[in-house]
């Protein structure tokens, strides 16, 4: 490197940005292929209906329409949409790419029209006549469990997909017997719509001569698609190239194998022409996965001095009509961090997955962990209030000490490292806690509804050890010192906004001692990044970055051997520093990468048995997850007349281990908090009693706008993770996980003087106003 200051730890500008700020990024919908056809999908307006007849002749007669297909035409060729979650005794309906003789949710794909122009394809689906016989719809997961309930899939005979039970730690029954008190609470984690600003989009192109299919798709998981699509399409993975170009936001919604991806591939092969499908916003709201939708009944066994002896959770997860890739796995993740960052010796967690006539739920922003954090952080406040104990004292009382790590929890996981007291102390200091308490007192004395909320969270990141993952949790990476001494880095993770083109370049430039401008990071194309497990679960840097570090170290080791040969000495005498190879005491000569790379590739003077080239690849298998943590403090004022919440202070102190680029960390935290503000105050996916989706547009589904976001005070502490050489933990979901309960606790604290003890999310002005009138509002 030029000035010997490490790139790691520096707030460096993102190398992704110059193209993106000029509108030069290529997203899937920006691709222009010769002879491109456009697909448009007809979707069910009913939550549950039998299809009596589909008439497509009028649609086919429109000039420019190339084909119209129904389920009968394509389902036998496209196989079933896969679910990767391994849950014992899981009951699953067959998930075809287009509906068969029934539709099971509003937005269920029924037919597809392909035309020379997207407007014509759109006109064509308007001309398809479908004769539906509407059937009773199941829309409420609790009702769905009752005997005599209508059935989501009548042929399956029941609405329950699975029951998952975890008993962990010491004897839960003894804990409850020994309790002075048992505190019970019901919490609802509402259904949410991820709403990336770029909807899903697919372009499929088939090369008949080569027999190869290329699929450009707005996905987080091109490699998992390459593994899973062959089962649907019958094409071997060796003939399948998946490309995730620029992806306009994922948030878990694009961590999936979707029917439309297989359908477009099939259409391209069948019609011998490239086919594009771009989802409309309404389709995105109806037919891209939703998140959350868990209702839980919780019981906490406590002693009067505040000691928590045990926690029982009985949870019902609304899965929707079908299992997408990880649908049943997400609610079970909640059980892994049920106890949050607290020593709770005994737990029992039971979750029942239930089918309803709605879009599938799956991984959205945190996936199972926000549910766990919200419930434990609400419960800590509920317990503190009931026992009249300070809520911070209650939390501190149950934190493991920094010396207790690695800390095995009663949920069966081992937290890698932590200093929960440290983030709490720093957050209190940044929030000026004593002054905040004085402000609250003064505001309340003046008749204002002012509240302060706290959450101390821990999350599971760096997914993950393969034995704990559905399909391999390792990551692959490759580093090549080119003949020009420029460096090519290839990663198997698929960043889509997180910024690893920058942070990986920082890591590699430091280790190789080259200018960062000389490092290019490639990703997202399975013909380039041969193998990978992609981006989700805050794994990119912790798992993918480690595979890169391993590869760099192999390249340096190999280079040392070559340098030793050139110095006419042994490997052990060669020292590598700041991008130069030296042999102190042997020679004053120094060899730079430019000379060494040229020797490695020209291959005229190599040691015996030395392979030409300077390239190495690695698979990294993590031995454990990582467990980032933090403390969020939020102050709100609630308008007495309108119920509107104003966030007056927001402090977040997050510990994601070592930080490669603080600018990226800050961005991830801020963006995550925005999702949490949405979840806490505005967002909810609503189906009416007939299963009609009422939140199908940005005008109905309220994601936060620039006016809804407060000024943030962000801080961090650094507790390196011992499970990877970078010491990083991951920061993708910290904001979302930490902030939702902090905001909820703040609003409820503000309403406490009115006697309100709980409110379900989202805490909209209407719901708060009603609570102010009636003291409490339970929504489920």
């Amino acid at each position, binding site marked *: 490197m030029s000035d010997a200051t490490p790139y790691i730890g520096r707030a460096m*500008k*993102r190398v*992704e*940005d*110059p193209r*993106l*700020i*000029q*509108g*030069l*990024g*290529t*997203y899937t*919908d*920006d691709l*222009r292929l010769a002879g491109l056809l456009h697909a448009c999908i007809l979707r069910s307006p009913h939550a549950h209906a039998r299809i009596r007849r589909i008439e497509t002749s009028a649609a086919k007669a429109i000039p420019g329409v190339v084909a119209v297909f129904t389920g009968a035409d394509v389902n036998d060729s496209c196989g079933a949409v896969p679910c990767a979650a391994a849950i014992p005794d899981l009951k699953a309906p067959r998930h075809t790419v287009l509906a068969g003789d029934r539709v099971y949710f509003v937005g269920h794909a029924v037919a597809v029209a392909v035309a020379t122009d997207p*407007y014509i394809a759109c006109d064509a689906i308007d001309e398809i006549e479908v004769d539906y016989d509407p059937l009773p719809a199941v829309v409420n997961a609790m009702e769905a469990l009752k005997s005599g309930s209508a059935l989501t899939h009548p042929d399956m005979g029941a609405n329950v997909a699975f029951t998952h039970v975890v008993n962990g730690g010491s004897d839960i029954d003894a804990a409850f017997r020994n309790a002075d008190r048992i505190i019970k609470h019901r919490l609802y984690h509402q259904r949410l719509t*991820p*709403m*990336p*600003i*770029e*909807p899903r989009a697919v372009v499929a192109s088939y090369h008949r001569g080569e027999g190869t299919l290329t699929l450009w798709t707005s996905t987080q998981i091109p490699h998992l698609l390459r593994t899973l699509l062959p089962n649907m399409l019958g094409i071997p993975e060796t003939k399948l190239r998946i490309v995730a170009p*620029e*992806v*306009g*936001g*994922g*948030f878990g919604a694009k961590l999936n194998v979707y029917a439309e991806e297989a359908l477009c591939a099939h259409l391209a092969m069948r019609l011998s022409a490239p086919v594009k499908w*771009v989802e*409309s*916003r309404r389709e995105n709201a109806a037919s891209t996965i939703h998140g959350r939708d868990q209702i839980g009944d919780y019981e906490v066994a406590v002693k009067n001095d505040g000691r928590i002896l045990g926690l029982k959770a009985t949870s019902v997860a609304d899965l929707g009509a079908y299992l997408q890739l990880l649908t049943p796995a997400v609610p079970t993740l909640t059980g892994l961090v049920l106890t949050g960052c607290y020593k709770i010796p005994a737990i029992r967690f039971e979750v029942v997955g239930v089918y309803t006539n709605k879009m599938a739920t799956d991984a959205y922003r945190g996936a199972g962990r926000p549910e766990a954090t919200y419930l434990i952080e609400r419960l800590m406040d509920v317990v503190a209030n009931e026992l009249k104990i300070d809520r911070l004292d209650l939390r501190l009382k149950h934190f493991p000490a920094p010396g207790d790590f690695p800390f095995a929890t009663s949920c069966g996981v081992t937290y890698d490292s932590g200093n929960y007291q440290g983030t709490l102390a720093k957050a209190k200091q940044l929030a000026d806690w004593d002054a905040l308490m004085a402000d609250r007192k003064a505001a309340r004395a003046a008749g204002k509804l002012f509240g302060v909320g706290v959450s101390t969270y821990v999350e599971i990141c760096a997914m993950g050890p393969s034995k704990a993952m559905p399909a391999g949790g390792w990551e692959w990476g490759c580093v090549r010192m080119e003949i020009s001494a420029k460096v090519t880095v290839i990663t198997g993770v698929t960043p*889509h*906004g*997180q*910024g690893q083109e920058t942070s990986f370049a920082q890591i590699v430039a430091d280790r190789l001692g080259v200018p960062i401008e000389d490092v290019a990071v490639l990703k997202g194309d399975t013909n380039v990044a041969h193998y990978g497990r992609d981006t989700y679960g805050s794994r990119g840097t912790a798992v993918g970055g480690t595979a890169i570090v391993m590869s760099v170290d192999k390249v340096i080791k190999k280079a040392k051997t070559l340098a030793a040969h050139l110095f006419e000495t042994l490997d052990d005498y060669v020292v590598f520093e700041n991008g130069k190879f030296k042999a102190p005491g042997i020679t004053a000569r120094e060899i730079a990468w430019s000379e060494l790379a040229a020797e490695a590739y020209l291959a005229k003077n190599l040691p015996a048995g030395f392979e030409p080239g300077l390239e190495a690849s690695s698979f990294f298998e993590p031995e454990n997850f990582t467990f980032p943590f933090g403390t969020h403090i939020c102050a709100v004022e609630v308008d007495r007349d309108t119920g509107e919440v104003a966030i007056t202070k927001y402090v977040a102190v997050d510990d994601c281990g070592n930080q490669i680029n603080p*600018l*990226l960390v*800050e*961005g991830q935290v*801020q*963006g*995550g*908090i*925005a*999702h949490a503000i949405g979840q806490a105050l505005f967002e909810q996916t609503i189906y009416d009693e007939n299963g009609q989706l009422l939140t199908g*547009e*940005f*005008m109905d589904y309220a*994601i*936060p*706008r*620039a*006016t809804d*976001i407060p*000024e*943030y005070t962000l801080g961090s502490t650094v507790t390196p993770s011992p499970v990877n050489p970078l010491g990083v933990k991951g920061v993708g979901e910290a*904001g979302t996980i930490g902030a939702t309960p902090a905001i909820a606790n703040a609003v409820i604290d503000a309403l406490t003087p009115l006697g309100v003890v709980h409110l379900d999310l989202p805490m909209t002005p209407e719901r708060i106003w009603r609570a102010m009138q009636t003291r409490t509002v339970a929504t489920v």
Partner: protein
Amino acid sequence: MARLHIETTINGEPAEFLCDPHETLLSALRNGLGLTGTKEGCSTGDCGACSVIVDGRLVPACLVLAPEAQGRTITTIEGLSSGDALHPLQQKFLEHAALQCGVCTPGFIVAAAALLDAKPNPTEEETRFWLAGNLCRCTGYDKIIRAVLDTAAHIRESAV
């Protein structure tokens, strides 16, 4: 259906294209003219990803018909930088890392450019309200607001 011949000015250059009467300006820009920097997020005028400036007015290109471009002057994201010289807003978005996935970014930059044209010295509140028509799901807006306010300050200082 007869295609319409439209003559207009885009990013300072005369431009002409053929379009269907029902085609949106967004479609004409992206498909007819190959200006794919303007993005589609909703096609209902709610997200701001397709923001362009028509005769000095900020509009969502998804709600403007392409034939309405006849005789107008249109600025898109591609018209803000010239060669390698970035617009000051682009420079500040870069410095603040005011983007992540980048799909909303062209719309934000065009909308912010319209704001600074109309009001070179906006308050933070004015900036937040002006940009409330642009949705971002990645950044949480903070860095975008800082970048725009910093640009305004920079332009004012450069003018002195």
